């Protein structure tokens, strides 16, 4: 049968610039959120997480912001490098320890 491919949203940035990747999640009862990075041919790799009782969390070069009012999550990458080029997914956890529900993903392309 016919297959329909989805085109991931793409963000293209210059090396050294800051990147912001956005995600809308679906369930207001979700209590835990994770950002994953996926390179071609590999499984998703953990970047940073945040619990619903927080609105901001910082890691090394990355910051996650959570806005529960509008069910929005963002990932900020400072001083983006070519090695950051990948597809980024947000994931929400509805029930403690239960399944993660993934968003569509954004492809980040870093130009040297």
């Amino acid at each position, binding site marked *: 049968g016919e297959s329909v491919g989805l085109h991931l949203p793409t963000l293209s940035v210059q090396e050294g610039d800051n990147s912001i990747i956005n995600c809308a999640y679906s369930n207001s009862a979700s209590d835990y959120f994770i950002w994953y990075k996926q390179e071609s*041919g590999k*499984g998703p790799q953990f970047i940073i997480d945040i619990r619903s009782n927080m609105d901001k969390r910082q890691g090394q070069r990355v910051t996650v912001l959570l806005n529960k009012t509008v069910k929005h999550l963002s990932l900020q990458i400072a001083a983006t490098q070519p090695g950051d080029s990948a597809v980024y997914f947000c994931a929400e956890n509805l029930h403690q320890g239960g399944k993660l529900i993934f968003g569509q993903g954004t492809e980040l392309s870093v130009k040297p």
Partner: protein
Amino acid sequence: GAGVSQSPRYKVAKRGQDVALRCDPISGHVSLFWYQQALGQGPEFLTYFQNEAQLDKSGLPSDRFFAERPEGSVSTLKIQRTQQEDSAVYLCASRPGGNTEAFFGQGTRLTVV
């Protein structure tokens, strides 16, 4: 320490053939998940185990899909009578329990011809 290991990395199956995909989670991890990822899309949940108990199989697309984790460690995802639409990457993930990150394996790329 070893991460989540999946085998085989690649599997080509003829339509109608049965396949079995293996996942070795991180030792001691209570929870184990299977996801299906089509090209250009995010991982879609298939099923979830807590120890040997299958707590959620709501994502399995049909009764041709079956998963087990009999001793609470290694898990097998079996697909019977494979169809072309089953072609995808099958990802396994494990987590210690509770709200913690899930660690993913490299996936098994299944191609049904």
